[in-house]
């Protein structure tokens, strides 16, 4: 099956390229990058040395393919989606342009109306654990925000079963530096970014819309209060979510709900361990894997439940999830090409 990538020089595009190169069902088509056209892909992605002599091409030379991964900066794929749909049967857009279903949400959250509201109906929010069936027949499969993915997967069972108060949800994500992408900036300059514990968005909003959209059950939409802090990581997110339970549930009950929802999911692991060093979800040991680990702890003296969720923002938070969605859409074994378990120690 021929798969191409538009926007292959960034981190999400490069990670998609790495995964697709190792995917048994995929023949790699083209990888586009306007700024690097004509250059070897390994000159930008050194881990691909001796693995492929593929060169970047311009998007103008894009040939037809079965699946097209799109990893472009914000706002680009909105305008060019018709062009992509004319080239590929399925488009997996890792960007943010088609994530929200309601056209009215775009001016509200992203400050500008959607360029192609007519296409929104064809787009499915591409997290398989949430929309496996819909993905099977979708032509546009959207990526999900990496912080949103972590939060949604952490809290889904609670809101699906109506166990948590939707008016009081506080989430703080601790994030690595690769989340900001491959473009260097003053704040990513090593002497400034190294060893940072930086409250770069104490009242963050960007991913809230997706989280509220995906955690709406029974007409009830939770209000989510976000915060983001940069920590000493390149890959990885840890979301610490504070929710308040409607009933006085014991941890046993919480185990049951999470096991019911996630027990059969190949990529979701409930991590709450009485022994060992890694007792709760921790991002560094997930680097390169497609896992999202979820744990929780009841606050004895109150109705608070702290839920912790971790993943690799470039894998389950972007490219890995894209390949997983491709596997679902094309009827392959969902874990195909995504078997890497992560490294320990790292």
């Amino acid at each position, binding site marked *: 099956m021929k798969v191409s990538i538009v926007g292959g020089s960034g981190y999400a595009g490069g990670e998609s390229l790495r995964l697709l190169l190792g995917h048994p069902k995929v023949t790699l088509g083209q990888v586009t990058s306007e700024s690097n056209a*004509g*250059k*070897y892909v390994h*000159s930008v992605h050194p881990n691909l040395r001796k693995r492929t*002599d593929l060169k970047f091409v311009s998007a103008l030379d894009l040939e037809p393919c079965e699946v097209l991964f799109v990893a472009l900066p914000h706002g680009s794929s909105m305008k060019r989606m018709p062009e992509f749909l004319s080239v590929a049967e399925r488009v997996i857009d890792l960007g943010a342009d088609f994530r929200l279903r309601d056209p009215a949400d775009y001016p509200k959250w992203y400050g500008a109306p959607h360029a192609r509201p007519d296409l929104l109906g064809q787009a499915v929010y591409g997290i398989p654990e949430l929309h496996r069936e819909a993905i099977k027949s979708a032509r546009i499969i959207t990526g999900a925000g990496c912080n949103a993915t972590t939060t949604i997967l952490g809290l889904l069972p609670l809101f699906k079963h109506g166990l948590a108060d939707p008016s009081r949800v506080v989430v703080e994500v601790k994030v690595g530096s690769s989340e900001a992408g491959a473009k260097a900036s003053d704040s990513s300059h090593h002497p400034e970014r190294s060893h940072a514990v930086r409250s770069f968005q104490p009242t963050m909003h960007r991913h809230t819309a997706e989280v509220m959209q995906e955690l709406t059950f029974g007409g009830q939409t939770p209000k989510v209060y976000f915060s983001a802090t940069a920590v000493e990581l390149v890959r990885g997110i840890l979301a610490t979510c504070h929710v308040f339970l409607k009933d006085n549930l014991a941890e046993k009950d919480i185990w049951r709900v999470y096991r019911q929802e996630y027990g059969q999911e190949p990529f979701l692991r409930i991590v709450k361990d009485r022994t060992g060093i890694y007792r709760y979800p921790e991002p560094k040991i997930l680097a390169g894997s497609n896992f999202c680990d979820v744990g929780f702890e009841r606050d004895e003296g109150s109705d608070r439940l702290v839920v912790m969720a971790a993943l690799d923002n470039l894998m389950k938070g972007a490219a890995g999830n894209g390949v997983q969605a491709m596997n679902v859409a094309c009827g392959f074994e969902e874990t195909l090409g995504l078997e890497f378990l992560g490294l320990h120690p790292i």
Partner: protein
Amino acid sequence: MAVCPECEAEIELKEAIKGEIVQCPDCGVELEVVSVNPVELAPAPEEEEDWGE
């Protein structure tokens, strides 16, 4: 098949055009096609950008 003047890597060139810039797959140097039949390559003029510490 042309040879990189810097590292002697073999470089496959389908219909090379005079003046075209190609990159050596092994040592990454930018090369200019200075003649065709047979194809000859010479290091392309490059601005010296600093790298590293």
